[in-house]
């Protein structure tokens, strides 16, 4: 029975805060595997094809609108796939199937948390965002407020979220590629960094979107095939599949019921808030709403994205259960101690081998690599836009930047972010980074989301309220995570945490909303009354789309 209990250090799953599954799930020491030629050849095919797309996109990317928003020419269906692609990271594929493999039902609870934010984004955010903004969410937050302070706040929120997410992805990528391809860590990180810079710098949003769409399609196809093979092994009966899994799993029928994932109601609700509203504050996701022509297509994007993401989570659930009896009982996937070779996060990869042989194993490994590339490209573009569109064009040049210069700044930032991402990936190789994605979601929910939401819904919001409240949300999310169990105990090795909860969102979001409100109502300046007066026009535009930026002509 020992084989089910992989050491915590090898998987990180048990120690990691729940979020770690979303990105960068491979934690701790990883052994380099033997060179996997099928995977490498298929990965090269993917790279060659996507670089071809980048070349095609580069010839169509001329204006700032092309670079940041693919000229607004992406359809709702395509954007839905791209958004789903941003969400279906390698780590959510491997991490959630591993969690189902290990804990059964708890894996499903987890996926649900990640999905339910999407309908809320549709009902409250998507079309207003599309009607008011152009390239970044800061366009909306600063619509009727003072440009300089609000843009600086929004760019800070964006860059912090992007940096945390990028580090998690880069470290996860290095370790995953070591495991899957038998390539060393540093060269894996460098390859990811170089390719993401190529996609973004030359192909802009058009290439970034198509790389994401292609990856989403191959990932969904691969996962569908695996789920069908699992169902076939159980005679296409869910009862049959569950029965086989319960029979061999050491926790037996416990895997069919909720376990310890949600034991503390405050932590559970706080996690739910961070997942739900953090999604609505992730800059690289919000940016995708500007790539479609209008509010109508923006709505469709969320509908398709929700469908694809929900379908994907059902597939990972089936894959995790199938792995229990197809991988967990097969000696060829176990080391001499009876543990899963490479750790529990590898069960989906072993299952690929079990149901489709070496060639399909290579395919799934290549898909996992492609997934990381597509996600980091979107993050990089979002970070570059914050620097060039929000800081350079709006703050430094006061909105009078020449378009060619703005694009040049964006491309240089992309290059700089690539170098920084590679360096951080190497620096953080041996660090415990499990808290980073949790922190990114908490900051997105506590800083970006409250300001964005209040700017669209509350007439009384003023510049002072937005900037002070937003920074308080950001700071409190960071401080509470640092003094909470995930950093204070797991990373800094202190005895006990100063703050008892792993997920601070319920507190930091409240602080952000309360202080944004307080500083806004206390603001009796002349500027504040002007800002309130501009709300009516903003409201009409957010509802009707009159004056909204359209798709570019070509």
């Amino acid at each position, binding site marked *: 029975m020992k084989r089910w209990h992989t050491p915590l250090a090898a998987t990180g799953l048990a120690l990691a805060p729940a979020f770690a599954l979303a990105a960068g799930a491979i934690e701790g020491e990883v052994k380099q595997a033997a060179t996997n030629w099928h995977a490498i050849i298929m990965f090269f095919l993917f790279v060659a094809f996507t670089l071809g797309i980048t070349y095609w996109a580069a010839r169509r990317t001329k204006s700032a609108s092309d670079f940041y928003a693919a000229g607004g020419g992406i359809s709702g269906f395509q954007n839905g796939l791209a958004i789903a692609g941003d969400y279906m990271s390698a780590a959510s594929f491997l991490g959630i199937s591993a969690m189902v493999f290990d804990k059964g039902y708890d894996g499903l609870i987890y996926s649900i948390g990640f999905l339910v934010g999407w309908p*809320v984004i549709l009902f409250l955010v998507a079309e207003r965002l599309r009607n008011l903004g152009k390239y970044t969410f800061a366009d909306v937050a600063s619509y009727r407020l003072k440009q300089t302070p609000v843009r600086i706040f929004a760019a800070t929120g964006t860059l912090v979220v992007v940096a945390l997410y990028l580090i998690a992805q880069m470290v996860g990528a290095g370790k995953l590629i070591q495991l899957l391809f038998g390539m060393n860590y540093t060269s894996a990180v460098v390859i990811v960094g170089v390719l993401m810079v190529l996609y973004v710098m030359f192909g802009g949003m058009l290439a970034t979107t198509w790389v994401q769409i292609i990856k989403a399609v191959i990932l969904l196809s691969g996962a569908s095939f695996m789920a069908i093979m699992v169902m076939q092994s159980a005679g296409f009966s869910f009862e049959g599949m569950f029965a086989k899994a319960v029979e061999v799993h050491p926790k037996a*029928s416990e895997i069919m*019921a909720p376990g310890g994932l949600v034991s503390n109601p405050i932590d559970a609700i706080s996690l739910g808030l961070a997942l739900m509203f953090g999604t609505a504050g992730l800059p690289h996701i919000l940016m995708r709403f500007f790539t479609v022509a209008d509010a109508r297509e923006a709505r469709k994007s969320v509908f398709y994205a929700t469908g694809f993401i929900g379908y994907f989570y059902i597939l990972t659930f089936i894959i995790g259960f199938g792995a229990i009896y197809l991988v967990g009982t097969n000696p060829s996937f176990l080391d001499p101690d009876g543990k899963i070779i490479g750790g529990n996060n590898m069960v989906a990869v072993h299952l690929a081998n079990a149901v489709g042989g070496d060639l399909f194993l290579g395919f799934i490994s290549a898909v996992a690599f492609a997934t990381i590339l597509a996600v980091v490209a979107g993050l990089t573009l979002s970070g570059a836009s914050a620097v060039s569109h929000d800081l350079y064009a709006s703050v430094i040049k006061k909105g009078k930047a020449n378009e060619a210069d703005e694009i040049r700044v964006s491309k240089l930032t992309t290059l700089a972010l690539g170098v920084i991402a590679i360096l951080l990936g190497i620096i953080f190789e041996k660090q415990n980074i499990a808290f980073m994605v949790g922190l990114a979601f908490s900051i997105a929910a506590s800083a970006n989301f409250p300001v964005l939401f209040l700017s669209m819904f509350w007439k009384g919001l003023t510049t002072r309220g937005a900037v002070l409240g937003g920074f308080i949300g950001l700071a409190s999310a960071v401080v509470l995570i640092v003094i909470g169990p995930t950093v204070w105990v797991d990373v800094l090795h202190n005895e006990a945490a100063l703050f008892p909860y792993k997920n601070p969102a319920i507190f930091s979001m409240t602080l952000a909303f309360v202080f944004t409100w307080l500083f806004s109502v206390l603001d009796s300046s002349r500027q504040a009354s002007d800002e309130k007066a501009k709300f009516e026009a903003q409201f009409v*535009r957010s509802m009707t789309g*009159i004056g909204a930026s359209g798709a570019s002509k070509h």
Partner: protein
Amino acid sequence: MNEEVLKRVQSNPKFLELVHKKTSLGWTLTLVMLAIYYGFILLLAFSPATLGTPLGGGVMTVGIPVGVLIIVSAFVLTGVYVRRANTEFDRLNQQIVEEAKQ
């Protein structure tokens, strides 16, 4: 948008109708989603055994169809909103935009 267009849109009863319908549908569906999700979380926190109850004597438990239904409900709710917004609301919106131009 100039002052005149703004006034014309704001005083158009169709605009008030659009705001009312869109806002109430958006918030109603948001509350439905929040109620479903937080109902589930509270059930897990306070009465986990409920979801672990076996279904029809087999190994399948109540929690499995409930979980899948929540995933499906998220998709269905987005479908309900998009269907109404992209037909009824957009038609109304189109008329408001046309009338604002005159």
